C-alpha cells in the first residue's frame, strides 16, 4: 500500500470540512443576505432572522462543497486551489459530496419549516443554479460562465428579503441586479492577472478565449449598468440621501478604476496594478453599498 493511498483513508480534519465551505465567499453571502433581511419592510423575530441567515450560510457552504467535489481535478492544476482538501489528498471525494448534499438538504428543510417556503424555494434554486448550471454546465463550456453564473451569488439578498416579507418585489430584484452586474467586472479583473492559472486548468475564462482587450472592454462596459442599478433605489425613492450620495461616490470610483483597466495594455500580471486595484475595490464596493443600503432603509423605517 502506498503512502498516498493510506493518506486518503485517513479521516479528514474538521478544518478540511470548514475549508470545503469556502468561508470567504460564505462571509460575503451572509453579509448580503443580512442586508436584504434588514432592508426589507416588516418585522421578523430575531430567532427566525438568525435561523434564516444560518440556513443561507449553510446553503452557501453546500454550494462550495459541491463545487469543490466536482472541480477537484481542475483545482489540482491551479496554484491558487491546489492546496484545497480534495486536490491535496486530505479528504476523499465521496465525503465532500455527502457533506455538500447533506448541508443543502438540511438548510433548505430548516428554512422551509422555520422561516417560509418561498425563501426555502429560492435557496434550493440558488444551490441548484450554482452547483449544476454554473459549476457543471457553464463554467467548463463558455467564457460567459460567470455572467450567467453570477446570478447564483446574487440570490442571497433576495432570500433575506423573502424571509421577512414572504414575497419578492422590485426592490430585492434591484439588489439582485447590483450583484449580478457587479460579478463580471469583479471576476474578470481577477481572471486578467490570474490568466495563466485558469488557462492551465482549461477553464474558458474570457481573457483566455477572447483576449485581454475584449475583457477590458467588457469590464468597463459592465461598470455602467452596475453603477446605474446601484443608484436606482435612490432615484426610485426607495432609499435616502445617505445611500444615494454614497452609491454615486462609490460607483464613480468604480468607473474610474474600470476606466484605468480599460486603458491598460499590459500583458504581464506584474504590470496589472489597475486590475488588482479594481478587484480589491470591488469587494469593498459591494460591502459598503449593501451596508449603507441596509442602514439607510432602517433609518427610513
Amino acid at each position, binding site marked *: *500500500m502506498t503512502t498516498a493511498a493510506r493518506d486518503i*483513508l*485517513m*479521516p479528514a480534519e474538521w478544518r478540511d470540512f470548514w475549508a470545503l465551505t469556502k468561508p470567504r465567499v460564505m462571509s460575503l453571502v451572509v453579509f448580503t443576505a443580512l442586508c436584504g433581511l434588514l432592508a426589507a419592510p416588516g418585522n421578523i423575530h430575531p430567532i427566525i432572522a438568525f435561523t434564516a441567515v*444560518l440556513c443561507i450560510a449553510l446553503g452557501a457552504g453546500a454550494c462550495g462543497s459541491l463545487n469543490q467535489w466536482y472541480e477537484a481535478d481542475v483545482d489540482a492544476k491551479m496554484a491558487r486551489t491546489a492546496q484545497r482538501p480534495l486536490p491535496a489528498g486530505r479528504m476523499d471525494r465521496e465525503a465532500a459530496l455527502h457533506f455538500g448534499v447533506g448541508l443543502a438538504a438540511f438548510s433548505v428543510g430548516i428554512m422551509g419549516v*422555520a422561516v417560509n417556503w418561498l425563501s426555502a424555494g429560492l435557496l434550493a434554486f440558488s444551490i441548484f443554479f450554482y452547483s449544476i448550471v454554473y459549476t457543471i454546465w457553464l463554467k467548463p463550456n463558455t467564457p460567459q460562465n460567470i455572467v450567467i453564473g453570477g446570478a447564483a451569488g446574487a440570490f442571497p439578498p433576495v432570500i433575506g428579503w423573502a424571509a421577512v416579507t414572504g414575497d419578492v418585489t422590485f426592490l430585492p430584484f434591484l439588489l439582485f441586479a447590483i450583484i449580478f452586474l457587479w460579478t463580471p467586472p469583479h471576476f474578470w479583473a481577477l481572471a486578467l492577472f490570474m490568466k495563466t492559472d485558469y488557462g492551465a486548468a482549461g477553464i474558458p475564462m474570457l481573457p483566455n478565449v477572447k483576449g485581454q482587450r475584449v475583457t477590458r472592454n467588457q469590464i468597463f462596459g459592465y461598470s455602467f449598468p452596475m453603477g446605474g442599478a446601484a443608484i436606482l433605489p435612490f432615484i426610485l425613492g426607495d432609499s435616502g440621501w445617505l445611500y444615494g450620495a454614497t452609491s454615486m461616490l462609490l460607483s464613480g470610483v468604480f468607473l474610474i478604476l474600470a476606466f484605468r483597466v480599460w486603458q491598460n495594455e499590459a500583458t504581464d500580471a506584474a504590470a496589472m496594478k489597475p486590475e488588482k486595484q479594481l478587484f480589491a475595490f470591488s469587494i469593498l464596493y459591494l460591502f459598503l453599498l449593501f451596508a449603507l443600503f441596509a442602514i439607510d432603509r432602517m433609518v427610513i423605517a
Partner: protein
Amino acid sequence: MTQPEQSPYTVEETALIRKRQAARSRLMGVALVGLCILFFLITIVKVGVWG
C-alpha cells in the same frame, strides 16, 4: 484457527486518526447541542409564547 488481523496503520497513524475522530466528535457534539437549543427556541417562537 485464524490469525488476529493486523492493522494497516502504524502506531503514530492510529494516534492521529483517534485525535481527528475525537476533534470531529467534539465539534459534532457542540453543533448538535446548538441545534437542539435553536430548534427549541424556534418552537417557542412558532407557538407564540413570545408573541
